[in-house]
C-alpha cells in the first residue's frame, strides 16, 4: 500500500529553469537576510514557470497524486493567488522535442494570511492517467509549476510575489 506515501520532495534549490523563450522563470531569493530560507518568487503580473525533474519511485502503486505546496506571500496579508502544475512523462520521450506537459494544468487557489511570512499550504490534486501524463512507477518525469498570474485557471488577485519554499508529492 502506498496510499499517502511521500513520492518526492522538491525544494527551491532543486528547481530547473526551462530553456524556452516562452517561459519566464521565478527568481530564487532568500526570505530576509536573517533566516536565509530559499524561496522561488513568483511574479504577480506575468506567469512564471519552474520545473523539477525526478523519477517516480518503484513503490508508487498507480493512484492519483497530491502536491502539497508550502508557500508564503512576500508582502500581502490578504487576497488569493493561484498555483498550477503539470506533469511531463520523460520515459519513451524524445528529449530533443519541445516540452509536452499534460494539459490542462491542475491548480489550487491559496489565500494569503495575516502575516506575510507565515507559511501556508495548498494542495493540487491529480487523477492517475492523463492528468499525470500517464507517469507510472519507474518513469522519469518533469513537474512544471507556475503561478497563474493572468487568471487562466482561477482568480489571482494578490499583489506582490508568492514564494514557494517546497513541494511534497504524495500518493492519493
Amino acid at each position, binding site marked *: 500500500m502506498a496510499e499517502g506515501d511521500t513520492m518526492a520532495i522538491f525544494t527551491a534549490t532543486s528547481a530547473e529553469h526551462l530553456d524556452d523563450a516562452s517561459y519566464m522563470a521565478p527568481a530564487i531569493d532568500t526570505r*530576509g537576510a536573517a533566516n536565509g530560507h530559499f524561496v522561488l518568487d513568483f511574479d504577480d503580473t506575468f506567469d512564471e514557470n519552474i520545473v523539477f525533474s525526478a523519477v517516480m519511485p518503484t513503490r508508487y502503486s498507480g493512484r492519483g497524486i497530491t502536491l502539497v505546496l508550502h508557500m508564503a506571500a*512576500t508582502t500581502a496579508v*490578504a487576497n488569493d493567488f493561484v498555483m498550477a502544475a503539470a506533469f511531463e512523462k520523460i520515459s519513451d520521450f524524445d528529449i530533443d522535442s519541445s516540452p509536452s506537459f499534460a494539459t490542462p494544468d491542475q491548480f489550487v487557489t491559496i489565500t494569503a494570511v495575516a502575516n506575510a511570512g507565515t507559511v501556508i499550504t495548498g494542495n493540487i490534486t491529480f487523477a492517475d492517467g492523463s492528468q499525470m501524463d500517464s507517469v507510472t512507477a519507474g518513469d522519469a518525469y518533469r513537474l512544471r509549476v507556475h503561478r497563474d498570474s493572468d487568471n487562466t485557471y482561477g482568480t489571482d488577485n494578490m499583489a506582490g510575489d508568492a514564494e514557494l519554499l517546497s513541494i511534497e508529492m504524495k500518493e492519493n
Partner: protein
Amino acid sequence: MAVLSDSERLNVYSQFSSAFSARRDSIGTLNKTDLHAAINAIDQWIEDNMASFNAALPENVRTTLTIKQKVEMFKLIVSRKWELG
C-alpha cells in the same frame, strides 16, 4: 502626450510590484485590482494636468523646450523627491 496603453500600464504595474516585493514593503490588504486602478488614475491625472504643468513653467522655457524635455525635468524632480523620502 497620451495616456499609456493597457500593456504599458501593465508594465508599469509589474515594475512597481517587483520593486515593493523586493523591498518587502507592506501593501496591507490591497489587491492587484486596487493597484492597477491607482496606476490608471495617476496616468490619467498626469494627462489631465499636462496643460497646467506646462503653464507653470517660465515663458522662455515653455516655448523653447520640447514636451519630452519638460517631462524629463519633471521626472528627475519627482525621482529625487522620492529618494529623499
